[in-house]
C-alpha cells in the first residue's frame, strides 16, 4: 500500500492500454485502449492525492477531470465512428487515415 505500488499499478494499466491502442485495428477497440490508459491516470491521481498532497483538493480535481475527459472522448469517438461508418461503411483504422501525410 505504498505510493510506488500504486504508481506501478498505474504504469501497468497505462502500458496495457497503450498496447491495446497501438495493436487494435478497430477504432472502437482503440478507444478501449485509451480508456484503460485514462484508468491508469485515475489511479495515479488518487495515489498522488493520498500520499503527497492530501491537504489540497487538486488531486481529486485531477481525477474528476480525467473521468470527464474519458467520457467526452468516448462521446466524440462514437460520433466520429458513426459518421465514418455511415460515410465509408467500415470502422477499421486503416480506412480512416485520410489525414496521413
Amino acid at each position, binding site marked *: 500500500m505504498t505510493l510506488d505500488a500504486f504508481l506501478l499499478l498505474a504504469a501497468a494499466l497505462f502500458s496495457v492500454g497503450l498496447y491495446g491502442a497501438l495493436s487494435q485495428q478497430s477504432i472502437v477497440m482503440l478507444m478501449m485502449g485509451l480508456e484503460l490508459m485514462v484508468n491508469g491516470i485515475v489511479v495515479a491521481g488518487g495515489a498522488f492525492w493520498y500520499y503527497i498532497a492530501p491537504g489540497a483538493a487538486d488531486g481529486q480535481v485531477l481525477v474528476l477531470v480525467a*473521468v470527464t475527459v474519458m*467520457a*467526452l472522448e468516448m*462521446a466524440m469517438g462514437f*460520433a466520429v465512428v*458513426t459518421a465514418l461508418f455511415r460515410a465509408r461503411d467500415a470502422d477499421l483504422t486503416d480506412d480512416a487515415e485520410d489525414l496521413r501525410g
Partner: protein
Amino acid sequence: METFVAVVALAGLGGALITAVYALSFLTGVRGTLGVAPFLSGGVPREHALSRFHVRWYAVTMVFLAFDMEMIFMYPWALVVASMGTMAVVEMFLFLGLLLLGVLYAWREGAFRWA
C-alpha cells in the same frame, strides 16, 4: 465490526444464497440439460440473434455521456451550498444553463427520436 468487512460479508452471503438456489435446483430438479432453439414463437431461427444490433437511440447515448459528466460536479456542490452561499448556486446554474442549451439543440436536431 469494520464497515467494509460487513459489506463484503453481506455480498458473500448473497452469493452463498444464490449458489444454494442453484445447488437445490440441481438436487430437486429433473437431471440433464435441455438444449433448445431460441424461442421465436414457434418459428425456426435463420441466423444468430447476437448480431450488430442497430440501436436507434445512439445519439441519445452521446448526449447522455456528455450531460452525465455534470453530475460529477453536482454531488460535491450539494454539500457546500449551505456554507458558500449564493456564489455557488449562481455558478452551478450557469453551468447547468450551458448544458440545457446542449439538450435543447439535441432536441431540435431530433436526437431524441428513434433514428
